[in-house]
């Protein structure tokens, strides 16, 4: 370890500077959106002509945006609950049981994260066409469940591996059945992962645009597709305000959730 520390000369400095620059690269454009959302100017870009909240006020009167927001929230909530439930059960099977074909099953469960979203988008749409079903909001929900499932399985799997089997075996040997054991022992220990996957699925669904462009029912916009269609018209300052609000929702929620989970874990045990 010492040899490593001593050797930190010029090369290490360069790496350090480069790292800072990369972080600037990742966050500067987003900061610009936030700053511009307070711009008083008629136009969405620079220069700043004064500080104002009027684009936020205007946003609150924009019915299309409010409708899209509502749609996205509903879809994301339903998706989060169903997808997390499916993922927890699946992960449980993969970690706690041995069975033939496990590798294959694992690959299938992860596949939606590797198959291009465009292909998944076309595929589901074709299924609806083939089955002669209309596109409804449920199509968005089902599609988002498929897209988010791999992430739930991965997150819950990682946590399950960390939970020792002895707790469950103790409960079983003391006479609890499988379901009781799950409810009383496994699930409480798994709670942080469940909360994490709920939040993860919520943001994946809320944020999805590529596949949602295919799946949304005609005339229905989700938040990202609404932004995209607004961008096609003009780069209005309202988009910056909208972007800032969305950043607050999607970054704030997981941070609060993570903090809360940590707090609960500390005070609970």
């Amino acid at each position, binding site marked *: 370890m010492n040899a490593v520390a001593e*050797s930190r000369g010029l090369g290490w400095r360069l790496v350090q500077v480069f790292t800072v620059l990369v972080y600037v690269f990742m966050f500067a*454009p987003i900061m610009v959106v936030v700053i511009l959302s307070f711009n008083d100017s008629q136009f969405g870009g620079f220069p700043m002509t004064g500080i104002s909240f009027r684009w936020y006020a205007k946003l609150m009167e924009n019915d299309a945006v409010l409708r899209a927001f509502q749609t996205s929230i509903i879809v994301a909530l339903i998706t989060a609950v169903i997808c997390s439930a499916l993922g927890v059960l*699946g992960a449980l099977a993969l970690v706690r049981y041995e069975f033939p074909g496990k590798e294959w099953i694992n690959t299938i469960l992860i596949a939606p994260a590797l198959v*291009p979203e*465009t292909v998944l988008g076309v595929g589901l749409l*074709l299924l609806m066409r083939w089955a002669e079903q209309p596109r409804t909001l449920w199509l968005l929900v089902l599609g988002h469940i498929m897209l988010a499932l791999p992430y739930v399985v991965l997150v819950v799997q990682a946590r399950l591996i960390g939970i020792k089997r002895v707790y469950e075996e103790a409960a079983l040997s003391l006479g609890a059945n499988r379901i009781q054991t799950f409810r009383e022992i496994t699930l409480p220990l798994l709670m942080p992962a469940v909360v994490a996957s709920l939040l993860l699925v919520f943001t994946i669904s809320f944020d999805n645009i590529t596949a949602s462009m295919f799946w949304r029912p005609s005339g229905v916009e989700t938040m990202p597709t609404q932004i*995209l269609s607004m961008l096609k018209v003009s780069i209005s300052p309202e988009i910056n305000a909208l972007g800032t609000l969305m950043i607050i929702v999607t*970054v704030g929620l997981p941070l609060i959730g993570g903090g809360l989970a940590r707090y609960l874990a500390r005070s609970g045990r």
Partner: protein
Amino acid sequence: MAANPQTAAERRAPWLLLAPSLITLVLLMILPICIMFVYSFYEFVTAGVEKHVYTTANWREFFSDSYYHMFLWKTARVAAITAILCALLGYPPAYFIAMTQYKHKWLLLLLLIVPFWISFTIRTFSWIHILGEQGVINVLLMKTGLISEPLRLLYTEGAVIMGMIHFLLPYMILNIYVSIEGIDRNLISAARTLGCTAWQAFYEVVLPLSLPGLMAGLLLCFVLAAGSYVTPDILGSTRDSLFGNVIFDTIMGQLNWPMGSALSIVLLVLLGIVAVIYSRFMGLSRVFKGLGA
């Protein structure tokens, strides 16, 4: 793994637990891809109408029309450039985060996760404010008098690549970070005591041992870049469309389902081949790890 012999109910349990997920994926992913395959052999009549008869017309059109080959080639080129630039930009930060003794290392890692929470659409359009005519770069250059006319930075292939790097870089950094973090530090110390310079220790020990993560990052970035169509849509001109845009236009614009199906199969198969070649060498479990990080 349980010591007691498995009963029939025990054996059934994992399948019951897996059933909901598997049914969902078979119904929503595998069946649709099969339907897609069948549709690619249907005959296109007019927008939104196709005849359910067997024809290879769509496939012949795909293999003979240079229009599609051009887009396919461009998509591969743009995705490869994006992936390689991500690797070059992503390696040093990953190395830094893994090796630093800075006590707020968790903050650096958290900041890598935060972009995943920020809407992809917003991250992409934020580049309009950087590269556009009224964007930061042009405004600054005009103010300092270096240029008199705004440069055309936005709606170019460069802008599309920039947007994709911005979105893919965290994937790359996390993948490389995980593999550097897993390297036994004693190996580096040993190399140093045996007379390696810091650079040699990096080149001979750290770099080879981090290759699996680097390759996983490259694969992930390439696949995600090659499949994208929203980034070119927002940051590119019509000339910068990628294969995904062609698919979208064919299906949502021209309502040509058979051709759209054929093109989707092409994208799926080509990216599948890339993934298979990769997994021959590295094993896909790496990528799963990278996704879960």
